[in-house]
């Protein structure tokens, strides 16, 4: 609390983007569950402005054409409890329910989790499997960026000065899915490794499979080789195919050893998590 901080609550998107663009040392504060911790830990020494987006009311979840739009200001609890999300995007529900702990989930926002861009961010793999797009508002207007292209490195995104995330657009489909994470504890744990799985029916009785891996690469990644294998298989997956898919995700993961875990463990566990996820979907 040493430096003089300014607090702003702009009344419109354009006021917010202008403010952010004019002050490169300003940061958006939503739930504050990452930002305040970083600030108190002294990791943001240059922080001058906190910009609260509460007036922009980016908290709705609704159908928008052939997408479901989830406002960036929606909390994890809000997302996990919403009938549309529960019906269509179970991977996202499962992920949102494993962020932090209850008190965190009632405060932390989807926009914050994504903008924080941790490779271990729990909602990101789920959103990736659902082929989400990010709707960004900036000083030049609104643009859509596929989430798959949104992250450029650990903690780094395609956002430019003045940008804010308005919403996430997810193609309107009824999916099956789930999310698994491994952490030091069952709550309040940053993921050592995580996996999201989503699948949905396609025309011609084919099934689409999407797998995303967290904390095993500089950003969250899709396991495309495993996906292709699963999609090439006939309707019910044999044990052999599952085994091969698990082997493939292990190969596609490129983890490092760090303070939280070792690369050998992470590499091995993505395969275990895929097996658990596929078994869970089979039972459902």
């Amino acid at each position, binding site marked *: 609390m040493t430096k003089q901080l300014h607090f702003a609550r702009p009344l419109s998107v354009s006021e917010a983007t202008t403010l952010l663009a004019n002050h490169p040392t300003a940061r958006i504060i939503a739930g504050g569950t990452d930002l*305040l911790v970083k600030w108190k830990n002294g990791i943001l020494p240059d922080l001058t402005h906190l910009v609260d987006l509460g007036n922009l009311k980016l908290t709705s979840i609704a159908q928008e054409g052939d997408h479901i739009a989830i406002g960036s200001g929606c909390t994890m609890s809000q997302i996990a409890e919403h009938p549309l999300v529960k019906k269509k995007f179970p991977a996202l529900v499962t992920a949102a329910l494993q962020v932090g702990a*209850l008190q*965190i989930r009632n405060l932390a926002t989807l926009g914050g989790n994504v903008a924080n861009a941790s490779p271990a961010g729990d909602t990101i793999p789920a959103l990736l499997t659902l082929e989400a797009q990010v709707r960004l508002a900036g000083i030049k207007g609104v643009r859509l960026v596929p989430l798959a292209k949104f992250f450029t490195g650990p903690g780094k995104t395609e956002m430019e000065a003045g940008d804010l995330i308005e919403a996430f657009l997810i193609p309107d489909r009824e999916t099956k899915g789930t999310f698994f994470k491994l952490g030091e504890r069952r709550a309040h744990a940053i993921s050592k490794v995580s996996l999201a799985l989503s699948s949905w029916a396609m025309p011609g009785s084919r099934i689409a499979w999407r797998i995303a891996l967290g904390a095993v690469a500089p950003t969250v990644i899709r396991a495309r080789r495993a996906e292709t294998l699963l999609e090439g298989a006939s309707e019910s997956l044999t044990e052999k195919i599952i085994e091969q898919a698990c082997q493939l995700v292990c190969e596609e993961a490129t983890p490092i050893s760090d303070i939280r875990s070792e690369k050998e463990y992470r590499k091995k566990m993505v395969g275990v998590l895929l097996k658990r996820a596929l078994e869970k979907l089979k039972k459902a």
Partner: protein
Amino acid sequence: MNKPELVTVSFKLNGKKVEAEIPPGRTLLEMLRRDLGLVATKEGCAKGECGACTVIFNGKTLNSCLKLAAQLLPEDEVVTLEGIEKDPLAHRVQKAFVEEGAVQCGFCTPGMVVSSYVLLKETPRPTEEHMKEALSGNLCRCTGYSKIIKAVKRASEE
């Protein structure tokens, strides 16, 4: 010396409208304890990891150490332990904690009571698994949790 920039906030606190003038960086927890004299809510880690600072915000629990006071709106309702003390459910929870020996140093207890209260209000007869999950955001370094769970169970059965 620059006069620090202050933000005026008004919101509902324990059923009453309050107004406060605070620096932008002040958290709800700091404001409750320092400016408003409500010290039941404790600061454990100041990083949202221990739950000692748990309050009820618009009906849901959150870590008040992570909520900036400046973000409060007039329609927001904050309820602290002081605000639920007269509620028979809160009394049952507190009594159960004492009777089951779920209080040792007592520092986690306010947060535990608030979280347990909200749990039982929403789910009067939770399973043990549900209780553990609902309280997983409240850490205790003394009791090992089993007596806390027993206390919540007792409060739910009375």
